[in-house]
């Protein structure tokens, strides 16, 4: 078993998702079965194969070096759950 209670807690923490005990149990089961299933990739010989990260056959074009304003801070803040004096507001971080 690749994923145990400790591992799922660690991943959940890295993902910033709180899990209750029942959920942890379920995800341990799901993740293990998915990881067992993807294990079959080890049958494939990938020696000297370059990893493919961008399938796009086009060359990244450069844009003109011209500045533009596409968003105002007002627009950016429009959907914020909490804001204060032109900033995003979050719970207090330092005492």
């Amino acid at each position, binding site marked *: 078993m690749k994923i145990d209670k400790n591992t799922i807690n660690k991943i959940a923490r890295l993902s910033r*998702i*709180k899990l209750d005990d029942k959920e942890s149990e379920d*995800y341990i089961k799901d*993740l293990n079965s998915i990881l067992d299933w993807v294990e079959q*990739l080890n049958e494939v010989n990938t020696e000297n*194969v370059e990893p493919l990260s961008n399938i*796009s056959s086009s060359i990244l074009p450069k844009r003109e070096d011209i500045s533009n304003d596409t968003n105002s801070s007002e627009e950016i803040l429009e959907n914020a759950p909490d804001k204060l004096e032109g900033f995003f507001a979050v719970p207090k971080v330092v005492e």
Partner: protein
Amino acid sequence: MSKSSLKQTLKDLDTKKISIRELNQDYLKRVKENENLNVFIHFSEENVLKQIDNLENDNSAKKLKGIPIAIKDLFCTKSMPTTAASKILENFNPTYESFITQKLLDEGSIFVGKTNLDEFAMGSATNTSFFGNTINPLSKENEPLAPGGSSGGSAAAVAADLCLGATGTDTGGSIRQPASFCGVVGIKPTYGLCSRWGIAAFASSLDQAGIFSHNVEDASILLQSIAGFDQRDSTSAKVDIPNYFENLDDDLNGKTVGIPKEYSIDGTPMEISQIWEDAIKVLEKKGVKIKNISLPHTKYALPTYYIIAPAEASSNLARYDGVKYGFRSEEIDSLDEMYENTRAQGFGREVKRRILIGTYVLSAGYYDAYYLKAQKVRKLIADDFNKAFKECDFIVTPTAPSAAFPLNEKQNDPIKMYLNDVFTVPASLAGLPGISIPFGKDKNNLPLGIQILGKHFDEQQVFNAAVSLERSYE
């Protein structure tokens, strides 16, 4: 199904046989009659009437003037909220318009509403949506069927004739599979043909927008309208967009079709093998050379996809933190508590599952074994297609391993659900264009789909083969 086509409607509008108002009121009526299908997350009659008013006062010539189009609720729209079918974006009102919806607005189309989908496009049945299931319009009474997914709302909107076309996105089959389930046409173009600007990101190296329509001609018209270079998407391709519709040519004489032997999978229903053979026979009669090809790494496409897509998703979905937009939990004693509770309460089960698995395969010590390995196998899968396309002009396969299944049937076993994408995922990994067209029925009279794949940016060949098959079937 003899439904009104976009092509014919444009003619009728042009010759004043019907007005923009009459046309859209007809569609509004059907939308209201079909509310039980739960096709739309957002629909406002007032909004549609306002768009009609505006167009009536607009004398400029526009290519899609007055045409009712449904928009997958993954595209940011200024005039309507955008939720990605997630609680975490329940109250999100974009302050900008996606590239594709802007193009459709510029052409004068009318947005009927925002269609339902699997949460953040993660699913194959439109059953992971925070806003409930969409029901396949082809369901019999008391036997609700899934419309496929993730773009199930858009496929259903076209199938129920609630619009003349709809936008979708396809990461591993999310346009082609629901098109097959709902008996409509769905095209996923080449990765990079349509800008991803303003589309909520799922797996950025795979996500691509496309079109649902009643027939191939309409799809060719609509794809042309949404394609094109956009400097705000760094993977957007600078290629010439041909006039797909004008160039449609159903004469396939002398072309070669590739039939990949690896797509004959044990356990595929007879009916699916049968329509595949039928399609090949039709092509043969049209003078197409049949070439048996091999795509040896096909069986590894699904496990490769289910490493790469969740990995990219876990990174893309990090932005939903309860700070910038969307839902924020009430339990926020500290900053970390706020993040963890917001994401725990805001995301659904499948999305969390994919974020967790993605985080795991990218985490220290596992990156090489999973993510890097998957990227290498992805290269081999793409190379398989490159080799195959040296010997053929296009490839024909079934779209999905089954017809539409009953709602909620496959919910408990994630891997069983993932197998829905077995025929669509390989082309997604290789970035190739693919279309699904209705072709034949199963024993319950439900539609089945044939998939046609082409070379990068050879959408024209895909359309030509599709229109040829479609015309022979009608």
